[in-house]
């Protein structure tokens, strides 16, 4: 039971951290609850569908279907996160100012919520499909399944609790800093996802250049340890990155920075709230 709990918890944790960060990043944006719910619901539904067709996906593209699927899912999430950050760079200050004045919601448009709902949906879909497959495997085995299943359910609950912890932890950040903090968290998240996506393409045999390992820090911080896992999700920590992974990681961070600079409103029109 403990084994099942841990396996499920690990998968849910990964999606949960992303959900927690996204929720904190959209604090004060109207209608976000609905979009986040839609994202999670679509993700759970999608996870079921993906798990159902796991065999087909796995054997597609000469046995590399799953890698291509994961790489695409991560790639789309990276683009969505970049879009979100660009939008926030432009409107974040207005939202923060208004939040300070009104206390809660603002009337600003809800454009990036669709992007973030997609990110949440994809995160839940990717990790969720593994949970569904794992739990299905337990049920298919029959014997002593109930204890394992209970472990699985507890794992989901623990993962959800961690999501809440992430969210409320981030909420402790003062209003005026929260958008810059979450923007950087999202930039690092996106860079890590992109590097992971590259590794999936490598496993599929699509990206083979620059495949030498740059360093090996497994002796210092194993990716299997709790801290290693958390850092892997949050900032893309990899114990043995390849040259291509490192390159893509840095490139995404730079692209994100440039994009946010371009999107930032010009200082010639200062926000009205600055005068208050």
């Amino acid at each position, binding site marked *: 039971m403990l084994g099942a709990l841990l396996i499920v918890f690990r998968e849910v944790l990964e999606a949960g951290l992303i959900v927690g960060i996204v929720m904190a990043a959209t604090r004060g944006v109207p209608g976000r609850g609905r979009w986040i719910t839609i994202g999670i619901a679509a993700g759970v539904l999608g996870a079921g569908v993906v798990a159902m067709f796991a065999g087909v996906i796995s054997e597609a593209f000469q046995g590399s279907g799953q890698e291509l699927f994961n790489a695409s899912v991560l790639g789309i999430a990276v683009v969505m996160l970049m879009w979100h950050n660009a939008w926030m760079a432009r409107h974040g200050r207005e939202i923060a100012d208004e939040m300070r004045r009104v206390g809660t919601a603002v009337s600003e448009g809800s454009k990036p919520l669709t992007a973030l709902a997609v990110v949440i949906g994809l995160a839940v879909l990717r990790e969720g499909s593994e949970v569904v497959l794992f739990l299905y495997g337990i049920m298919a085995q029959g014997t002593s399944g109930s204890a394992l299943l209970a472990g699985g359910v507890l794992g989901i609950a623990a993962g959800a609790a961690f999501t809440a912890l992430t969210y409320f932890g981030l909420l402790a950040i003062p209003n005026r800093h929260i958008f810059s903090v979450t923007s950087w968290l999202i930039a690092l998240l996106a860079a890590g996802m992109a590097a992971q996506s590259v590794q999936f393409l490598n496993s599929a045999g699509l990206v083979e250049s620059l495949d030498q390992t740059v360093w090996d820090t497994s002796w210092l911080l194993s990716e299997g340890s709790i801290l290693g896992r958390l850092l892997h999700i949050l900032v893309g920590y*990899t114990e043995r990155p390849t040259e291509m992974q490192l390159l893509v990681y840095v490139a995404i961070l730079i692209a994100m920075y440039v994009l946010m600079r371009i999107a930032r409103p010009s200082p010639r029109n200062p926000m009205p709230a600055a005068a208050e």
Partner: protein
Amino acid sequence: MRKILFLVGLAGLLVVGTTSAHAQNYVLTIKDHRFTPTEIKIPANKRVEITVVNDDPTPEEFESKEMKVEKVIPGKSKGVVRVGPLKPGRYPFFGEFHEATAKGTLIAE
């Protein structure tokens, strides 16, 4: 702006996505949550292809941090994974869903 970024990314993918020469293939079979063979010898510093065949009715996750591999193999199914080039050494792998029994080592020499 977004469109440009997307196109640049796509072009980049096409450039690096050159197909490689056929890598040598090795077969790993999962049965009763155990790998056969439990040891595979491969040439070091070369890319190889491992076909993981899951003969169990339940899914398994073929995983190795050392080889940078993580792949779910559904029950009664199979998948192919490319690894390497690996420096000479021992690279343990395991089935994450049945860690107690599903264990093995890849030896690069």
